[in-house]
């Protein structure tokens, strides 16, 4: 059975009337959400494009609006979603169409996170229906807004557990005149990550800093006006020594799409994690996996602050938890969090998708969920310590 409201009021009625858990679905591309028990509730019917003001850098749209639709509308005016939402269909082996609600619900941010900010930083306003069926709005369509509490941030990354977003307003940015990427092949991971951190410490406004340890390729991106990009690419080559060559235009863009979407792990089935750490601690984290004999492949983004990890097995042949015990213990030691992005049902049955949180944070978070969804019907059990994967 599937519910597909065509309006916000219809959605509110459905939630009020619901007597069983609901699995909130945008375009169905973030398949791990579906590990939730319940009737599918699709936001695909809430896909109306609203006001787009290129001169104000703002756009309003229904939460079910496909990201592709929005990107096409923006491209006509030379603008884009600057937080570079990842397209994980290849990684997860699914089809479907990513929606705005899904992207913001997951706070899904790409390589430009280090410079432009996360998805949550571009979300200016939301309308949502909470777990009681009450319609709530927060924020607006202006860039600066401190009127009352910032529930917009709270909704971003809440994975549908506090409410179902119906409409979002967001900040967009112009597509720069030029992009250029410094590419180096064959750097070892330690040297590559040191180079990335050094580049982010220069005044040259680096908008991407990644190292693919699988192919041994290191990337540093700058964007802007043509002269400025050429200047900064040149200065970066001096400031961060290495065997750099420079690519521009579509060739550069293609490299970053692969980083954004973790394409290097596409097509496989081994568990994949997305780990956020202090950039300088990335090497420590991966060493902990080596010490535990956990075979893995890594893609580093955000200057090392984001590690995509594919766990291929353990020396003793057993990694039935997808490496969760070893990885999460290491993350707890150095600080950060690890999210299970891809795994088979066997692993999911044992491992919560989100990193378990410290007591105080967990208590506040679960109390918030209980307030916004007192019956526990929205993506129930997806987040928080009670999170038990679907059977």
């Amino acid at each position: 059975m599937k519910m597909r409201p065509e309006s916000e009021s219809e959605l509110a009625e459905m939630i009020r009337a619901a007597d069983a858990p609901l699995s909130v679905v945008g375009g169905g591309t973030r398949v791990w959400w579906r590990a939730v028990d319940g009737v599918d509730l699709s936001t695909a019917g809430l896909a109306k494009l609203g006001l787009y003001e290129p001169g104000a850098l703002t756009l309003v749209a229904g939460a079910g609006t496909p990201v592709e639709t929005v990107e096409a509308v923006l491209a006509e005016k030379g603008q884009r979603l600057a937080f570079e939402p990842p397209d994980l269909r290849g990684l997860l082996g699914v089809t479907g169409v990513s929606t705005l609600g899904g992207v913001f619900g997951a706070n899904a941010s790409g390589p430009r996170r280090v410079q432009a900010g996360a998805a949550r930083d571009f979300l200016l306003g939301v309308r949502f229906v909470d777990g009681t069926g009450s319609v709530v709005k927060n924020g607006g369509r202006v860039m600066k807004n401190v009127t009352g509490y910032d529930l917009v941030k709270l909704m971003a990354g809440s994975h549908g557990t506090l409410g179902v977003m119906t409409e979002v307003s967001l900040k967009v940015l112009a597509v720069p005149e030029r992009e250029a990427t410094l590419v180096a092949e064959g750097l070892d991971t330690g040297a590559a990550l040191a180079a990335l951190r050094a580049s982010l410490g220069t005044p040259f406004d680096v908008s991407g800093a990644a190292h693919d340890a699988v192919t041994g390729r290191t990337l540093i991106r700058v964007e802007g006006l043509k002269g400025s990009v050429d200047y900064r690419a040149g200065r970066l080559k001096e400031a961060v020594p290495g065997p750099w060559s420079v690519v521009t235009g579509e060739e550069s863009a293609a490299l970053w799409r692969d980083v954004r979407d973790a394409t290097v792990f596409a097509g496989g089935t081994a568990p994949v994690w997305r780990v956020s750490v202090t950039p300088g601690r990335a090497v420590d984290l991966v060493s902990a996996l080596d010490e535990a004999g956990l075979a893995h492949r890594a893609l580093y983004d955000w200057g090392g602050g984001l590690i995509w990890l594919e766990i291929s097995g353990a020396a003793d042949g057993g990694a039935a938890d997808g490496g969760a015990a070893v990885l999460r213990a290491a993350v707890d030691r150095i600080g950060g969090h690890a999210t299970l992005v891809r795994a088979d049902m066997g692993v999911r049955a044992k491992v919560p998708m989100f990193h378990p949180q410290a007591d105080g944070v967990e208590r506040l978070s679960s109390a918030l969920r209980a307030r916004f969804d007192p019956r526990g019907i929205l993506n129930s059990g997806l987040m928080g310590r009670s999170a038990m994967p679907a059977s």
Partner: protein
Amino acid sequence: MEMPAPDPSVLARKPDLVARLRQVLPEGAVIDDPAETRAYECDALTAYRCAPLAAVLPSTTEEVAAVLRICHEMDVPVVPRGSGTSLAGGALPTADSVILGVARMNAVLETDYDNRFIRVQTGRTNLSVTGAVEADGFFYAPDPSSQLACAIAGNIAMNSGGAHCLKYGVTTNNLLGVTLVTMQGEVIEIGGPWLDAGGLDLLGVICGSEGQLGVVTEAVLRILPKPEGARPVLIGYDSNEVAGACVSDIIEAGVLPVAIEFMDRPCIRATDAFSGAGYPDCEALLIVEVEGSEAEIAEQLEVITAIARRHNPVELRESRSAEESAKIWLGRKSAFGAMGQINDYMCLDGTIPVSALPDVLRRIAQMSGRYGLDVANVFHAGDGNMHPLILFDANKPGDLELCEEFGAEILKLCVEVGGCLTGEHGVGIEKRDLMSHQYAPEDLEAQMAVKDVFDPKWLLNPAKVFPLGVSSARRRMDMAAE
């Protein structure tokens, strides 16, 4: 401005409260002499004053926790205070409250250039965060105009912005982690030097919660490498409409200046007379600043001045030296001082969609005639964050009330055109009762639900943010619980 009547039972317990606070704080950290508590009777919204029951100045997170535990147990309201620079009355005490000042907690705890963060105690001033890292080529981006005095604690509470947030964002975009002490005295770490705290974005909702969810004692802030250089250009127009159109065109062209500031004629005249900045006498003035190397600055200014010229400016002045840059900024930076010289003023900060700018300015001018009060406009045009300054005479009976009425009408207009009541100053007590114009009861209920979770007794910074009538049941519940 109505504030709830102080709770007599709390007032009666003052000796007991002060004695208990003295047990957990060092000598000199508890202030209860009425002659001294008067120092905390207001913040930068000086029209409203009320001395607190007592003030405490803890030096550590543990001391903050101890104070909050005592106040929680004794049902005493607590008003957190950074440097007291709020323009919205965010740190205004009630007579039955304890002011918790973080001014003594101003240490830098950790500086990490490799990972581009600084960890500070939140009593540290905004500018001194940059001061701690600028010799090494870094800075902390949010730059509220009170940055010399205002504390990071207050910046986090109000989600402060500044002139340069068009490019770098406001506090929430530069805050990586906090140490939060809840009203119950529990110490909670949220986030850290990595990007995006996991789970629900508690950091996002704490930032901008006006000290009502907890007391933030330490913060991990993102620091950025300082750009190679910066340079402004001054552009004058003979109409607000044209200046507004120029702003939109610059933004749409894809150059992202670090700042686009806008002044209208009353503001230009006042600031020029005050500062001798040498501004042209025109209807609207834009200051657009870009950053980068010399060549990059030139490249960006070429695009910007080409757009500006298409709109036939009456003046277009590109800075050619550091002195000229300083002169261009001089008037803008002294705008508030200049206004204060002429008159008492009330500063609003409603935010509107950039496209609504000319219409809103026209309607404010009409209102100004109707109320008989002058208004000067100076604002961050790139993001639509207005700062209408309404001039009034505090010594003239009824003028303050008239000014507040005028201000409220401007803010309602901001909401009507698709904007909001406050872009960076916060709600405090000043805009508290206007919240119902922007938000429906369900919207406010959702926000208050968050407060219920963090501070079930509603003891932290009470009677702020939410209209008194809307929050009264919850605040009474707290009283009834005694």
